[in-house]
């Protein structure tokens, strides 16, 4: 059997190739998120200072809620026959989990970057934190990818799977939401963001450990 890293790479390559062909994230999920950002001012008013103030928070909420669609899309779309063939490759379930999360991570970083530009434009939010912002994108991307992949594995093919995953992910993604918003807010106020970043990193580590340990038991439930 090939090494763990090679197994992860095989799964991630497969998922990214499939996404490149279908374009679901770029052509469906991303526009959907952008529309959400567009709808809010239509509902609450277009007062520029207010929008500038709430813009960053809204961005992160949209990332959390819509980002979960990215991390569960391919798990939910996989047929029984496809899952059977993956199982028969003998790949370590933990490697399958990490590989799926890795592919979702890449797509989530792209998603955040693109949506970030939309937010900058629509809400006239000043760009701050040229180092902190990418770091936050990476950590949030990793956290959401791990959480969404784990949640999709927990729900698997059960009843109401599609609706249940966001319900499971949303509350558990709150440390990421608060960490991301407060890290950038702290920067804006001239304070240290380190605590918030560390909190998010701890969240990511907890999710990674939970996902890897749960991978084999969860493969049984399919």
């Amino acid at each position, binding site marked *: *059997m090939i090494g763990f890293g090679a197994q992860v790479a095989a799964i991630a390559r497969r998922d990214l190739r499939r996404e490149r062909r279908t374009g679901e994230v770029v052509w469906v999920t991303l526009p959907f998120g952008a529309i959400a950002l567009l709808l809010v001012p239509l509902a609450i008013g277009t007062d520029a200072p207010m929008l500038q103030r709430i813009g960053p928070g809204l961005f992160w909420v949209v990332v959390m809620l819509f980002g979960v669609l990215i991390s569960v899309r391919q798990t939910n779309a996989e*047929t029984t026959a496809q*899952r059977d063939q993956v199982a028969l490759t003998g790949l370590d379930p933990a490697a399958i989990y990490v590989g799926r999360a890795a592919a979702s991570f890449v797509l989530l970083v792209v998603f955040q970057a693109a949506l970030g530009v939309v937010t900058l434009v629509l809400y006239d939010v000043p760009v701050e934190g040229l180092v902190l912002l990418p770091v936050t994108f990476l950590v949030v991307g990793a956290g959401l990818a791990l959480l969404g992949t784990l949640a999709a594995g927990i729900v698997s093919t059960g009843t109401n799977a599609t609706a249940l995953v966001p319900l499971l992910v949303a509350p558990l993604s709150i440390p990421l939401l608060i960490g991301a918003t407060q890290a950038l807010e702290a920067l804006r106020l001239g304070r240290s963001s380190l605590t918030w970043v560390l909190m998010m990193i701890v969240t990511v580590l907890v999710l990674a450990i939970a996902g890897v340990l749960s991978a084999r038991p969860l493969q049984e439930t399919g």
Partner: protein
Amino acid sequence: MIRTHVGIPVFRDEGSRTPVRTLLAVDTPQTLIDLDAVSVRAGSVHILRDVALEVNAGEAVGVFGANGAGKTTLLRLLATLVPPSAGTATILGARLDREERYDVRPRIGYVGHVPGLYPEMTLAENLAFTADARGINREASRDALERVGLGGAADRLADRCSHGMQRRAEFARVLMTQPDLLLLDEPHSALDADAVDLVEALVARTSSNGGAAILVSHDRGRVASMATRTVEIARGTIS
């Protein structure tokens, strides 16, 4: 016991294959499948009930039954994809109620009646994924597609291929991985005469290499000619 050499295959010329390097010598038990009073439940109903089946190396067993008899579930059980609800199941020496069942999965070739290809990937990419996962040279995937007559369609997206072509690609995957246990669900479904010959050759090769094949079908005539023996399955039980 039969000693099986597991190596990286290289397809040299028509009909011949020589492993370049033996990675592992595996002592395969003579009895490859041993089911003892095995039942499988789905919710509140039994799909299989008290199934007993023993298959030795070199055998090709045809399993016949009507719709809903439990043929596909039996095959997925043998592929270690479905856990038994009761009884003892041993596949290639591994008990299905233990972690060791994961270790034998790479030695199983399973072709279901629904292809397990990713529609948005080409046939070559689908097989290359399996090759990557198994540590097999990627060229082997194209070679395998050539050998099943899909060389010209290797770069075609799977969802642009007919059902028959997709099934051929699944057989190419089996050809590439050289399993010890070959499990075929409705092996003749959607296949033309050439592809049928391919299936027969695959079954013969697996059996002659010390493996075994299970062919599940409701088409007695065609499968009986490939099988060394047949069993009937009805209402979840083998008679």
